[in-house]
């Protein structure tokens, strides 16, 4: 069985490292196609803590790449570090695939890595299974209207995986820590990060990780209180349509759709969102879809499992109350 490298998706915090759920999902998928190893590009001192976490999801090894020399530059140094790791591990048995979260930066890193390692690239996989000729991926394309199965035919398969693509399964891993020294080229230092403002903490689940997402659109008229109250009652993340973001009602980090976040929760609750194709592209893989909209002709109703034609400003508070009452 060949080694599958899973790049740890995380946010570096002063008090530690917040590992995203997608990391555990990818380790679970990796175990289906080979022996999972994790790769942590971050502060070396935090490697041991990360190893403890990933070994509970089956990581046999954790490669730690200290990011002191990398973190001031976007994308390129990470891709170089991974290239060097792939080449190094290839000498000792071979890498079966590299799995990276389908985030904006993850996809960019993957694109560069594919070129430098001479490997095929698949983005936005929603499933991975073992195939006769290597890992077989599933993707949802054209705003969810087609499902595509594909595989890489050259080099080391580089696959970006959408969050929520698997249910993380705990497994015993050895979690052996292996520090890796990498070199960063001058070319990779050409773009420099001079300021960074972390996202405001909302206390709600991360949009792409959440099991339930409640989102609001033009129909809110700018009043997101009913949307947020319902989200909190359900323990959900809050999202917004592009119309709501363009109106300045919510920051872009809330946007769901083609040019925003791509979500696939267990339950997607659209309020006051018409459901344009650009919006569908970001939520159509949701398992259950519910909508409240005043306009019974809204295209969102073509997608729903359950829909209410009505004013969200009266329906949502009533649903929130019902949810709180039934949850006790």
């Amino acid at each position, binding site marked *: 069985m060949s080694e599958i490298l899973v790049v740890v998706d995380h946010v570096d915090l002063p008090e530690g490292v917040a590992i995203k759920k997608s990391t555990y999902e990818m380790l679970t998928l990796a175990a289906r196609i080979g022996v999972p190893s994790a790769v942590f590009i971050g502060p070396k001192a935090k490697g041991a803590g990360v190893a403890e976490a990933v070994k509970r999801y089956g990581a046999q090894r954790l490669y730690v790449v200290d990011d002191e020399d990398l973190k001031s530059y976007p994308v390129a140094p990470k891709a170089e570090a991974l290239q060097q790791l792939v080449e190094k591990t290839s000498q000792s048995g071979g890498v079966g695939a590299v799995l990276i979260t389908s985030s904006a930066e993850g996809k960019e890193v993957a694109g560069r890595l594919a070129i430098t390692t001479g490997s095929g690239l698949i983005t936005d996989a929603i499933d991975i299974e073992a195939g006769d000729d290597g890992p077989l991926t599933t993707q949802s394309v054209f705003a969810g209207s087609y499902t595509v199965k594909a595989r890489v035919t050259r080099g080391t398969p580089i696959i970006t995986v959408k969050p929520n693509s698997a249910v993380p399964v705990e497994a015993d891993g050895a979690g052996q820590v292996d520090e890796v020294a990498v070199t960063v080229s001058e070319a990779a230092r050409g773009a420099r990060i001079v300021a960074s*403002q972390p996202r405001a903490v909302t206390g709600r689940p991360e949009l792409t990780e959440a099991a339930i997402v409640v989102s609001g659109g033009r129909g809110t008229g700018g009043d997101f209180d009913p949307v947020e109250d319902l989200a909190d009652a359900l323990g959900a993340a809050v999202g917004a349509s592009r119309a709501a973001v363009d109106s300045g009602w919510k920051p872009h980090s809330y946007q769901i759709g083609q040019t925003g976040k791509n979500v696939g929760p267990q339950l997607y609750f659209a309020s006051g969102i018409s459901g344009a194709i650009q919006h569908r592209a970001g939520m159509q893989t949701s398992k259950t879809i519910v909508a409240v909209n005043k306009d019974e002709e809204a295209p969102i109703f073509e997608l729903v499992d359950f829909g209410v034609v009505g004013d969200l400003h009266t329906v949502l508070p009533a649903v929130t109350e019902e949810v709180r009452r039934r949850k006790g």
Partner: protein
Amino acid sequence: MKIAVCVKYVPDATGNRHFQHDKTVDRVGVDGLLSELDEYAVEQALQIKEKAGSPDDVEVTVLCVGPEQAVDAVRKALQMGADDGVHVQDDAIAGSDAIATSLVLAKAMQRGGGADGAGMPYDLVMCGMASTDGAMSVMPAMLAQRLSLPQLTLASKIETQGAKVRIQRDGDDATQVVVGEMPLVLSVTDQSGEPRYPSFKGIMAAKKKPVKILTLSDIGVDAGDVGLSAAWTVVEETTARPPREAGEIVKDEEGSGARALADFLATQKFI
């Protein structure tokens, strides 16, 4: 200053997008257009030109790889105000993956947009944030890798001062300010500013603007390195997703909608 804006000709998302027998996207038998998200790159290129000390010294070239019809995407960008176009068109390119497409784009740029091998003449290589069909979002990073240029990508705000470029990048977990110096690759998001509509004057002027057609041999790319047979990935199957089964839709009358919805959520075990 010379700016290259990479644009893609894509099937209209409101039309019937589908795959062909060879499991590639049908780009010829359907209505196509300039990928909407590339219009933002054209817009920002035009703004850089307009804000320059002498706009006439800034040349905006639109670069496109695609079948004959793809010239429509180039024309649209010329109507918006770009100066000229380069269209790499070769039957051997059909079915290329992103890796091969990035090779063709990079070689076309390194050839100075022509067959003379003059070297990479562009100070800025601009792209949209993703195509509206494949939506991989990898082309800017791949071009930066191939051209050994810095990448300032996913910009929602752009400032240039001489050769210096400063962007706001709305990343996954943070908003960053990223700086670099030309030549570099710059991709912009749909938060960078609404693209203009072509004016009547722009539409008329575009008819006279030159579009250079290049083949693979013009740019020194071996036909064996591109196209479906050279792709580093293979699509095993494509399945049209069955339409969702019609859900239950109720009209809210004095609170009935909320109760029915709560019942639904309860039966689905969400509460």
